[in-house]
């Protein structure tokens, strides 16, 4: 007999560190076996040196060889990937076996979202799901855009529908045209409450959600109540610190002024070029020049290389939450509270969020269950950072039109002893600290969303479900501009308030019955009523009567007011059926008819079906082997109809306040259309899922082809038609693409596991047609100055279009009589903003109780027009404007009158007559020409980013159980740590004005941030 040892131990889930109950622990080669208890603990007498097998459904089995005299063992089980019986949440919150689906779906676990937290939930999907493109607008407090499988609608919303526990929730970005980048509404969601997110790509997956699902669906399942272990309380604390990651590369040789001259008197033209907010001034070589702080005294003119960087502080996000959960036979609940407190890198900017969530179900009888999910979220911002080119509060506007010698630290006290405002320039800008402190925008969003449901099991085959979900919020903004702000001398005050409500009430019947030993039938039929209303009330006092009092009544002028109300309603009937054969072949059919209030009476009813099928070849043909674990083929076709926005049918006239005593009506810019038909998107998709070598290699590939026709476009027309836009029912756009997910487990040992997850996607779009007659060749998606983003017939979606240098037949720049490059009167295409491909690589390592993972996020291709580069070139603040500015930097010498200059440049180009250009121009003139033309400011927008790094440590169960803890883990987390590679100078190429379709344009972006912090999770 071998000696036996009393072995104690614990089995925990590798991902959470929580004990796993009911795990089977077996001594290989004997009958000795045990199961773990509710806390995941076990004890067993085993022969020393024996092998133990730990197995548990849904987790990868582990075999461990005991060391002699080992008396305690802690085992971490990994969740099984791509297992045959993997269950995913699909449309209408119905869980289905993944193998039965004929379309692509990808799930992200809650822990992957919550450890390295993002203040905007959307950001945490970047690089993690094939086919998903996330663009963070700018800074770290604003909006983020998410697109799945490219833009399928030329003019409409291209972002997916968000659904939480079966109820659609709003992800609008309200008020995108102002000077703040308000966060999109889904950022209200607390990632701690998320159990999992399913990404349903393309309309194939989503026929059951109706119109809005044409661009895909993101299904969020929140954590629900479960039988508690210990006290059932978990606490999470996440604290991160943010610093500026990308700033333009500034020059530190020449200071403020023009033509090399500068002297400060009053900052608005009183001195020599002191009203000029550019850096074409004298060399910063310590020469003595009066400056803004020196009271007329000549002081050394010196560079301050970090002057912009030092304006931005360290941001801080404190995120603390608690959750309580328990369950009995009749009732279960989970309650959570989370507080997030963020201060931005811009002085005086902050956002606070308080989330309350209650998720509960109650079995009224064994067959009748009541479920309720309620959330209250209050988002409160003391001040959101100003973005873009607004004089009253655009920081990067001022820093790009800047004197490079300015020491911002001398601006911190923005009033002098007499109370007058102090700034380096007084003709355009106000002191940046003044605008940060006084020109503030407050935002408060109060949101209640959730649903109640009743589930009645009529018999073993038939279930009835009723659910009513509501999402209601008010979003109020108070926008202040202080007295004395340059350009707005009397200041202003505006209150902008939105109220949004959406209700979805749904009834479904579900019939699920084995038809025979081989066939199973699962039928669902139901109806939905969706009502949505939105209200906006905006009031503005354009000039304040007295300073510092921010009420609407404190106005010099009549208030400017705007009120908008809109509502829509959709009735739907839908049905889906799944026929399963022998648990390895499945056919899925769906059908839906919508009746939408937004369409003309004759066209408001529209029907759309889908069909898809899947077969698990490895099962069907018994192909399983040591090499092949799993092989599935799938394919499908689907169609989605789409309505339009309210009030698009009849021409209307806009009221404005009376002039003299006469009321005013103005024609709407958009010519409406009484004959609109629903848009139609059809999609075909095939794919395969493959697992090899005991699931250590997992591959999922999809190919799709999506056509959107009859698009409802508000197309730009020549104003000479009498309108700026016309609503047409035309437009065809095609998207084709491929998505690949590859999972690898190169190493799998008890103590060590290495996983690699790679995703790759490539989408090609083509605008096929804009109108049937072919009159329209381009649709303007957006513009910034003279640079436009177009959907042009025959071209990919989102082409950048604008002014270029005039060139001769050999491609050489043609200069004018003064030797300055000329602009071609014909605009040019510069390429599309959409990427050629996207990729993400996650490497995760687990060694004993440590986890390390890092995510590399790649965007390849696509162009961006950079307003920062254009402006910074024109103002001479960028390092790229140094060449030619003096002899030291290669400038040529030339003489005007009796003065000799050394900042000459001969543009490499030809004269209008074809002869070689020999004219010398000043560097300032040359760079100004580059500023005015779009072409030199269009860049490749590719990037490779180290998006996320996590180093986690799970405290061993044996330690923590002694102090009454169920689990405890600590992680160091970092987001956006490093831009490994980019081609666009001076900016982060991942940027946007807002979440709309007008992407590929950058102007004076707030710097992106990198964040580093830690996450602590403790369960009692």
């Amino acid at each position, binding site marked *: 007999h071998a000696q036996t040892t009393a072995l104690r131990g614990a089995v925990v889930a590798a991902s959470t560190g929580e004990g796993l109950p009911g795990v089977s622990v077996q001594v290989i080669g004997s009958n000795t076996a045990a199961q773990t208890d509710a806390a995941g603990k076990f004890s067993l007498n085993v022969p020393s040196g024996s092998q133990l097998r730990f197995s548990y459904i849904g987790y990868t089995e582990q075999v461990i060889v005991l060391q002699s005299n080992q008396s305690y063992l802690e085992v971490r089980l990994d969740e099984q990937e791509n297992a045959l019986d993997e269950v995913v949440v699909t449309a209408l919150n119905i869980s289905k076996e993944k193998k039965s689906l004929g379309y692509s779906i990808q799930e992200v676990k809650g822990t992957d979202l919550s450890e390295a937290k993002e203040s905007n939930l959307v950001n945490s999907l970047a690089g993690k799901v094939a086919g998903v493109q996330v663009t963070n607008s700018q800074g770290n407090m604003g909006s983020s855009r998410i697109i799945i499988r490219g833009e399928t609608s030329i003019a409409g919303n291209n972002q997916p529908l968000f659904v939480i526990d079966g109820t659609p929730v709003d992800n609008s970005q309200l008020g995108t045209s102002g000077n703040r980048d308000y966060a999109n509404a889904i950022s209200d969601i607390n990632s701690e409450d998320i159990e999992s997110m399913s990404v349903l790509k393309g309309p194939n997956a989503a026929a059951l959600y109706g119109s809005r699902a044409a661009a895909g669906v993101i299904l969020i399942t929140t954590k629900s109540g479960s039988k508690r272990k210990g006290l059932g309380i978990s606490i999470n604390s996440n604290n991160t610190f943010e610093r500026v990651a990308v700033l333009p590369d500034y020059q530190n040789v020449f200071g403020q002024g023009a033509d090399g001259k500068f002297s400060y008197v009053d900052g608005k033209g009183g001195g020599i070029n002191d009203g000029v907010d550019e850096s074409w001034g004298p060399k910063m070589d310590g020469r003595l020049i009066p400056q803004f702080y020196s009271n007329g005294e000549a002081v050394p003119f010196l560079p301050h290389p970090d002057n912009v960087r030092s304006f931005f502080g360290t941001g801080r996000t404190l995120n603390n939450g608690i959750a309580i959960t328990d369950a009995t036979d009749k009732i279960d609940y989970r309650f959570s509270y989370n507080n997030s407190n963020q201060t931005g890198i811009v002085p005086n900017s902050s956002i606070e969020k308080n989330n309350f969530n209650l998720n509960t179900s109650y079995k009224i009888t064994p067959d009748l269950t009541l479920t309720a999910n309620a959330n209250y979220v209050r988002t409160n911002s003391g001040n959101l950072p100003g973005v873009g080119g607004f004089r009253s509060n655009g920081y990067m506007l001022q820093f790009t039109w800047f004197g490079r010698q300015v020491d911002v630290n001398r601006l911190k006290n923005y009033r002098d002893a007499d109370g007058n405002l102090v700034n380096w320039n007084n003709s355009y800008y106000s002191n940046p600290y003044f605008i940060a402190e006084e020109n503030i925008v407050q935002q408060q969003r109060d949101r209640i969303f959730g649903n109640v449901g009743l589930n009645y099991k009529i018999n073993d085959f038939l279930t009835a479900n009723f659910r009513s979900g509501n999402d209601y919020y008010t979003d109020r903004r108070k926008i202040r501009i202080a007295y004395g702000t340059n350009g707005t001398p009397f200041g202003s005050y505006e209150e902008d308030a939105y109220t949004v409500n959406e209700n979805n009430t749904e009834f479904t019947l579900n019939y699920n019955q084995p038809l025979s030993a081989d066939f199973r039938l699962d039928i669902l039929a139901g109806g939905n009523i969706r009502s949505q209303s939105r209200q906006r009330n905006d009031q503005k006092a354009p000039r304040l009567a007295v300073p510092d009092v921010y009420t609407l009544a404190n106005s010099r002028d009549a208030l400017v007011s705007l009120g908008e109300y809109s509502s829509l*309603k959709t009735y739907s009937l839908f049905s889906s059926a799944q026929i399963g054969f022998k648990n390895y072949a499945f056919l899925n059919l769906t059908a839906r008819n919508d009746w939408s209030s937004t369409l003309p009476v004759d066209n*408001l009813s529209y029907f759309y079906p889908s069909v898809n099928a899947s077969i698990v070849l490895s099962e069907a043909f018994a192909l399983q082997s040591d090499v092949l674990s799993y092989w599935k083929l799938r394919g499908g076709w689907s169609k989605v109809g789409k309505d339009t926005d309210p009030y698009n049918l009849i021409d209307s*006239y806009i009221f404005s306040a009376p002039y003299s005593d006469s009321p*005013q009506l103005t024609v709407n*810019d958009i010519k409406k259309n009484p004959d609109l038909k629903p848009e139609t998107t059809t999609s075909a998709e095939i794919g395969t899922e493959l697992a090899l070598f005991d699931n250590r290699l997992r591959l999922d590939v999809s190919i799709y082809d999506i056509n959107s026709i009859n698009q409802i476009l508000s197309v730009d027309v020549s*104003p*000479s038609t009498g309108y700026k836009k016309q609503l047409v029912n035309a437009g065809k756009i095609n998207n084709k693409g491929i998505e690949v997910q590859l999972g690898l487990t190169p190493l799998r040992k008890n103590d060590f596991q290495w996983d690699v997850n790679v995703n790759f996607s490539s989408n090609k779009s083509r605008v096929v047609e804009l*109108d049937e007659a072919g009159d329209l060749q381009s649709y303007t998606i957006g513009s910034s100055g003279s640079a436009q983003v177009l959907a042009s017939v025959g071209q990919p979606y989102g082409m950048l279009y604008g002014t270029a240098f005039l060139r001769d037949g050999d491609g050489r720049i043609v200069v004018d009589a003064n030797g300055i490059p000329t602009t071609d009167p014909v605009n040019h295409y510069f390429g599309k903003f959409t990427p050629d491909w996207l990729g993400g690589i996650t490497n995760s390592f687990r060694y004993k109780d440590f986890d390390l993972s890092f995510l590399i996020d790649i965007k390849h291709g696509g162009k961006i027009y950079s307003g920062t580069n254009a402006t910074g070139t024109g103002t001479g603040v960028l390092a790229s404007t140094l060449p030619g500015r003096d002899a030291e930097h290669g400038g040529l010498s030339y003489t005007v009158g009796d003065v000799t200059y050394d900042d000459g440049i001969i543009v490499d180009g030809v004269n209008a007559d074809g002869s070689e250009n020999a004219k010398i121009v000043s560097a300032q003139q040359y760079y100004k020409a580059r500023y*005015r033309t779009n072409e030199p400011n269009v860049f490749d927008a590719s990037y490779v980013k180290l998006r996320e790094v996590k180093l986690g440590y799970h405290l061993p169960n044996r330690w923590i159980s002694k102090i009454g803890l169920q689990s405890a883990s600590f992680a160091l987390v970092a987001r956006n740590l490093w831009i490994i590679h980019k081609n666009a100078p001076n900016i982060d190429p991942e940027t946007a004005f807002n979440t709309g379709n007008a992407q590929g344009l950058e102007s004076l972006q707030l710097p992106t941030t990198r964040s580093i912090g830690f996450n602590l999770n403790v369960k009692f």
Partner: protein
Amino acid sequence: CKDDLAEINKNPNEAETPQPAYLLTSTIKTTADSYWGVSNNLASSLLFVQHWARIQYTDPDRYIFTNNDFTDGWSTWYSKSISQLKIIQSLAENSGNDNYKGVALVLQSWIFSLLTDAYGEIPYTQAGNIDEFLTPAYDTQETVYKGLLNDLKMAQGLLNTDSEGIAGDILYGGDITSWKHFANALRLRFALRIADRLPDLAKSTLAEITTEGAGYITSNAENARLIYEDAPYRNPVSSSFEAREDYRVSKTIIDKLRALNDPRLAVYADTTQTATPEQYIGVPNGLTSSDASNLGFARTSRPGTYFRDPHAPAVILSYAEVLFGLSEAVSRGFITGDATDFYQQAIRASLAQYNISNELIVSYLQQEEVQFDPQQYKKSIGEQKWIALYGQGLEAFAEWRRLDYPQLTPAVAGVLGGKIPLRFLYPGTEQSLNGKSYGEAIARQGSNTLLTKLWFDVE
């Protein structure tokens, strides 16, 4: 259920049935804002004719523009002004109110003339009719002006003091007689605009006006002008100066006014903020930003307070202009009369427009340099009209091109090889939105540059 759904989709925010009076008010207001505003006036035509100059950011004063810089007029005048005036006309036809139709036609003719004088060939016959023409063809200036004279003749016939009146008229308060005078004043303006090209049509037009007998604008009280109100309906110049200090009075006009001892100098310009011996100092047009800045904001003259006042009028057509027009029409032999007398009356009217005393007017008119020279009527009228049109950049720009007086020296650091712009650029968006028609216009008229000469501009 379909009816319920249709009911939900009834627009609660905007009117579905327009009122002609309310449309008329907003049309006049919107058009005037753009006509008197930054893009068409301050940052372009007022600089070209050297009424004003830039003291900072001097690019437009050096004729540096992109094809995005002239979108405002094109976009506003077509998609707001013309569009609304067409709607007013169709409402008037349905209701039988000829006076609304007449007023709308007068305003529409004025606006088309702003467009064609600025850009050259423009959509006219197919403009503002989106149901039929999604890509309107461009018409030659000849077609446009012939059409406009026809439209105005029709308007003159429609306008009737005995018929049902109009409301919402913030130009003339519903006074149809004044509208008839304004219509004829525009016909006089247009007849002279084409005088070098179609003298017979010009002459016959003036003959028709005489025959019809309604007459022209009779006094400064009848000037076609919008008087602005308090914010937010302030004069655009006032708004501009509240936000920035981009403009000063041009050295060209200050020097000219000083040379003529012109009492309008004190109205057109402010004394320098920092006291200077000259009191009024103009800024040469088209300096580099640095050179302009060196002159100093405080040591150069802003436009006069008369023009920077929130309530300052946007003048569309003045009594003085009518009189200059009659003087020229006599000089050209289109009508009979005393050209010198009309010329002197015109100057009187212009000075009186700014409340200058009769004594000063008399002594001004006695000066040698102010005398009318019938042999060089273009010079006499051109120079005095240029002064009288101060602030009306677009009209001054058109008349300077047509009369070739006063002879202006191009911008100091101009980029057009020593030339002054002769037109605005078509907006870049026309290339993508109405490419074929645009291409045809360019082929006829010449490339889309600032120096392409327009049809009415013969010399």
